[in-house]
């Protein structure tokens, strides 16, 4: 059960929009939206240091966040 961390949508663009239209916009959909009750024995990061740096013990709960515009 995998999901994407981000969704895209295509806003309406009016012929009279004064600012240059952004045709694709995104919003984050982090993993807690999909997990329900966390399943037991979920895989953990390999080292405590990795877990500490990620802010969570479980990769499945980690949500990468890039500065807007830095997305790859």
């Amino acid at each position, binding site marked *: 059960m995998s999901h994407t961390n981000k969704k895209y949508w295509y*806003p309406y663009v009016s012929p009279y929009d004064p600012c240059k239209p952004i045709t694709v916009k995104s*919003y984050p959909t982090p993993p807690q939206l999909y997990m329900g009750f966390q399943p037991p024995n979920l895989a953990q990061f390999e080292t405590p240091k990795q877990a500490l740096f990620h802010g969570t013990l479980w990769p499945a709960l980690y949500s990468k966040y890039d500065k807007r515009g830095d997305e790859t």
Partner: protein
Amino acid sequence: MWYYEKKLQYPVKVRECNPRLAKYLIEQYGGADGELSAALRYLNQRYTIPGKVIGLLNDIGTEEFAHLEMIATMVYKLTKDASPEQLKEAGLAPHYVNHDGALFYHNSAGNPWTAEYIQAKGDPIADIYEDIAAEEKARATYQWIINVSDDPELNDSLRFLREREIVHSQRFREAVEILKEERDKKTIF
């Protein structure tokens, strides 16, 4: 724009002059979880929410104004022609000296409505979750008002309004499911 129908969404009947009950009900008029907050919250959030849920915010926000009118009608009927003495007995003397019999957007403790009651975070998930929470808080408020009201006809209208909160909450939860769906994946980067 809006078209106006000169009738209430659901009838409002009030059995007796009861300014004290009006004082409690005003919570749903100008309180944090009241109908004004709800209407303004949804109708404001709709501009920057993904297209698939704009219509939902539009429709529910509009319905909240219909509820606001019902609450206003209840408050008005409960206090219409009440003497200053009756208002005083109901703890409404401070309201009377400031507003006479006029309605005003404040909560039952007299705090004026403030935009701090609502939020537009711009993050669709955060905004819709706030809306779900607001519906549940409004539902709870209706329950507590029904608990302190012994006007059966008024309670009938309040039960209708409580039920609408439940339906709205369900619709917002469905909106979250729509926002979570994987369709519309960006294919070109």
